[in-house]
Each structure stands twice: as C-alpha cells, then as structure tokens.
C-alpha cells in the first residue's frame, strides 16, 4: 500500500475541479485543452483551461484523469495552483510545486506530478498554436520505447529535479519501468547531465568571481572610496582576520584611519611578541591592500 499524505487521500476522495469546460463562444474567452499520457501507459490526463484573452489569465481549470490515486490528486492540485495565473506564470509551475502542494508524493509516484506539469504545457502550447511536435522535448532520440520517453525529456526532468539514479528517472517519467532494456541508456544520460552540470557550475563560479573582481576594480578606479566606505571595508577585512587571531589567543581592533594609514591595536598574544607583531602587521596589510586599496599601510599602535 502506498504511503500517501492526508492531502493526497483527501483530494482523491474529494477531487476539486474535475470535469470538462464547454466552449460557449463567449467573446474575449478561449477554451482549450491539453492531453498527456495514454491508456497503454496506464495514466492519462486531459486538462481544460478557460482563458481570458486580453489579460492572458486562466479563469478556470478542470481535469479528466485516467490513473491512480496520486494521479487524481495531482490533477486536482494542478488545477488549484494555476487558477487566476497568467499563462506565463502558469508555465513556470514545476512538478515539484504540484508535489509540494500535496505535502509530497512517494518517489515512485512522482510521475503523476510530471504528468500534470506536462498537460499544462500541452494546453498552453495548444492555445498559443505551437504544435507539440515542434516542442523541442519531443525531438531527440527515443530512449524508452515501452513508455515512449525521449532523451530530451529525461534530461529536462533530471536537471529540474536533481535526479541522479535511473530508478529516480523511472519514478518521475516511467522510463525504465517496463522491459528495463533502456536502463543503461538512462544511466549514460544521467552521467552526461552530471558532467555538464558540474562543468557549468564551475564555469559559472569562475565567471561570477571574475565579474565581481572586475566590478570591484571598476569601483576602485572609477570612483575613489569615500572615507566611510574605506572604513567599512577595512572593518570587514579585520573581522575576517579576527577569528584566526582569537584562536591563537590574540585579537585586533581598528584604532584609526588617517589617510592611507590604518592604525590597529594588537591585543593579547599578538601584542606581546615583537617579531609576531611585525608578521601580523604585514599579513593584515597585505589583505587590506588586496581587498580595499593597494596604497594602504598598517601601523600597530600601543594600547593606552
């Protein structure tokens, strides 16, 4: 027996927005529907939308579902989530949001939430006159013939839901849940996706770091720092250094900033040893020069 949340069971026993929407040719109103799934695969969803043409808003949403408990509950959840949204807003709804609305779904049933998101897309594409075949997802190699799932679809769902195992892919899009001949191919796609995402995140991280650096440089060169800005930055660097000093029984405090001279008070263990004072001073100086202004000099002052 599946371990469904109370919300799932409630929406299964008392579904909301079931049925169809009849087009009454009202001016300014469009009625469309989108379908996904098939009886062969054992679940199918037909989503009906009533759209206000001028505002692009979903006025009403109804569903017909052939499927299990969680497919019926997911369809209810979907219709509740999208009412009153504009079509663009609705397109941003993810399958995870459908699952969240239900208080979660057993992982093996996540494909019900995916089906909801796809039916929504199908309905909106229908309305906008984009043929489903033109939708890039349906192009690309067919990976799972048992459930007609393409490579693009596996990629999208894996990326959107952070899937790392073929088993998860089966739970989300059914691919691999039949003869299992496609499992190896699914694994390959997952490895490729993972490599790409690590590569992308590395690249992004470097790009962001470079952009930040540039922005800093620009700030430094374009506009000279005001005294307040300079002091705030110096304080920030000193705060970064303090935990290290504290760990060794010392501490540092900003005493004054006079032009490009930063006067600091070295305390505890840091203040007592002359050679360490010199090292410390230069260590702090280097950081300040790097992160605030290259012309800064640090001076240690005696505590009064």
């Amino acid at each position: 027996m599946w371990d469904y949340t109370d919300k799932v069971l409630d929406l299964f026993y008392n579904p909301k927005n079931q049925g169809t929407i009849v087009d009454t040719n009202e001016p300014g109103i469009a009625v469309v529907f989108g379908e996904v799934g098939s009886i062969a695969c054992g679940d199918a969803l037909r989503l009906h939308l009533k759209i206000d043409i001028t505002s692009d808003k979903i006025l009403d949403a109804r569903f017909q579902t052939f499927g299990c408990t969680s497919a019926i509950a997911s369809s209810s959840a979907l219709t509740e989530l999208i009412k009153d949204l504009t079509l663009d807003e609705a397109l941003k709804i993810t399958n995870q949001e459908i699952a969240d609305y239900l208080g979660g779904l057993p992982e093996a049933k996540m494909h019900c939430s995916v089906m909801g998101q796809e039916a929504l897309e199908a309905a909106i594409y229908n309305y906008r006159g984009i043929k489903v075949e033109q939708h890039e997802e349906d192009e690309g190699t067919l990976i799972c013939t048992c459930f007609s799932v393409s490579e693009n679809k596996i990629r999208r769902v894996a990326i959107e839901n952070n899937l790392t195992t073929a088993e998860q892919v089966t739970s989300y899009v059914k691919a691999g849940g039949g003869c299992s001949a496609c499992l190896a191919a699914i694994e390959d796609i997952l490895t490729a996706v993972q490599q790409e995402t690590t590569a992308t995140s590395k690249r992004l991280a470097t790009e962001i770091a470079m952009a930040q650096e540039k922005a800093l440089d620009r700030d430094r060169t374009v506009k000279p720092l005001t005294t307040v800005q300079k002091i705030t930055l110096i304080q920030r660097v000193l705060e970064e250094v303090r935990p290290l000093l504290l760990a060794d029984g010392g501490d540092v405090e900003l005493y004054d900033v006079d032009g490009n001279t930063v006067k600091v008070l070295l305390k505890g263990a840091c203040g007592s040893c002359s050679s360490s004072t010199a090292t410390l001073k230069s260590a702090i100086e280097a950081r300040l020069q790097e992160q605030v202004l290259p012309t800064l000099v640090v001076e240690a002052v005696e505590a009064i």
Partner: protein
Amino acid sequence: MLPYLQEYYGNPSSMHTFGGQVSKAIRNARLQIATLIGAEETELIFTSCGTEGNNTAIRAAIAAQPNRKHIITTQVEHACVLNVCKQLEKQGYTVTYLSVDSQGQIDLLELEAALTGNTALVSTMYANNETGVILPVEKIGALAKAYDAIYHVDAVQAVGKLPLNLQSSQIDLLTLSGHKLHAPKGIGALYVRRGFCFRPFLLGGHQERGRRAGTENVAGIIGLGAAAELAQQHFGKITQQTQLRDRLEQGLLSTIPDCQVNGDRTKRLPNTTNIGFKYIEGEAILFSLNQYGICASSGSACTSGSLEPSHVLRAMGLPYTILHGSIRFSLSRYTTLREIDRVLELMPAIVERLRALSPFNTDQADWLQDREEAIIVGSK
C-alpha cells in the same frame, strides 16, 4: 504454534530433550503436509516461501540434467520463475515461454512442438495467481515425461484448494507456500519426488537430510502442518466458497456496465475471480475499496510496485481499456455472505465515480482510440 515460540524453544537439530520434542513436532507437521498432497514425508523439504521453492526446484532440475540446455515455461508464471529463467538465458540456456489464449490457457500442441531431447525442464503453474486459471498439469507432465524432461509445478495457489495426489502423478518437483493456505508468511515447502537426483540450493548443516541447510523455522513449520490438516478437513466446504465467488462475480457483472471476468470461468480455482472494469485504473479502485476495509489486489503482490500492467493479462491479449482496471478478488474459507454483499453494494458507486473522472469513459472516446491503436501498432 505459540508453544513453539514459548515453552518448546529447543533447536530441533540439538541432541537434548528440548530439541527432541521439537523435532518430533516437525515430523508430525511433515506428515500433515504430505497427507494433503499425497506424498511421502521424506519427499518434503521445508523452505522459506514459494520463491525459494521455485528457485530451488529450477536450479535442482537443471543441475540434474547438465547436458540439456533447454527449458520450457509459460508467459504467465510468477516472477520468481520468469526471472530465474531470464537469468539462465544469460548463462546459455534457451527458454521457451509458452503463450496463452484469451482465456489464460496454454496450448498442449505448442508444448509438444517445443519439447526436444535437449529439454531439461518443463516448469508450469498449477493455477495462475492472478486469474485462478488451472493448467492441465497431468497432461503437461505426461508430455514432459515422453521426452525425459523434469516436470516442476508451481502449485502455490492450488495447494489446499485443489486435491492433489503426487504419488500417482507425473510431477517431479512441486512448490507450495504457507500463507496461501492460512499458515503464516515465511514458510513453504518443496516436494521432491523420491529418487530424484537432488542438488541442494542452500549448503551448510545436515538439516532436511542435507537438502536444505539452515535452522528450521519451527513455529512456521508447525503452523504449516496445522494449516495443511485444516485444509484437508475443509475440502468439503469448497463448494460454498465457489458459490460466494460466483455470487460476487454475477452481482458485479449485472450491476456494473462494461466489465468482464478475465480468464477461463470453468477451469479455475474456487476462490479467485479477476474482473476488468473498463476505462478506469486498478489502484484507484483498490484505494476506494480500502476506505471501507475491503482488500483486493491488482496483479500479483510481488509485482505491485511495477509500472507495467499485469504480464498475465497482457499475455492473454486483453485490450488496455481492461488491462489497467483489472482487480483480483480472492475469497477464503472465512469469507462470509455479508462481506460479499457489502462489496456488491459498494462497487457500483466506486466504479461510477472513477469513470466520471476518467477521460476514457466510453469506447467512442476518440482520444482513447487514437492512442490505443497508436500504441498497439508502435509496440509491434
């Protein structure tokens, strides 16, 4: 069973009195089971379940005929037979999976055509776990013997419901499982015809005369023995079960449109009915029934997590409209008339509600037709 979990806790393999008491009780259980299936006590090996029995039987059979590399089974076997066969295919065996007709019955001519001097084993069910359809085991056995092939029968569903006399049969190996006849779960037995050159699956101590090592599940064995004796006593009452089953079936068929019984209605277990409700999905029916404390099942419990519709119903060539909405009702000797009438009272509304939710509520649904045809063409 309780005393064997409390006072008589001895290990039957121990030499002391404690052990002695227990081993005596096991002997008695063995006799009770042997009597039920018409076998000798020494022809029984206790196992942990039907799966262990089937795995052991298949492996023992091919080990006994190392020069033969062909196996015959059916498309509608339990996963614990099919998956072993699939694995053996990878190890160089050829496996013929006999087809079934729309009634779930095999064709003996197809079997005969498949048999060769290279056939090591024929393994078939006695009665199917999903539809209850009974296969002609004696005829199958005779054909297998004509080619000196070993005949194994998975009788998990049939033992206790159909009379058996293995002494005078063509069956070499036969599997049974406790919980199918009111014994606890986690106990089963394998019948091995006397004189069969048996190679054990589990190696270790000398339990079960060296044929299945491992400490006995004493309480389970005692339970299985008692259940076998009770089953024997209740054979006479089976007609009552059949009458209740038929009442359920006829009631459903007459009050709910677009439903049908799957499988042969005459050659069938007395307690099983598999009914397909068009246009709706099985799990949704099960959850609806569960709300009222009624437990039925879709497919086999061992494959209920699978996404594919039942392999048994698919092998019978049922259309998808029925395939996904098929439910198995199993009765026991404790099922009452009241319970049956309660199901009959509830089912029409459950089916109607789910059909109202479904986009496929008639065969005329164009969407349904397009898709079903597309898939059938695509899958060929």
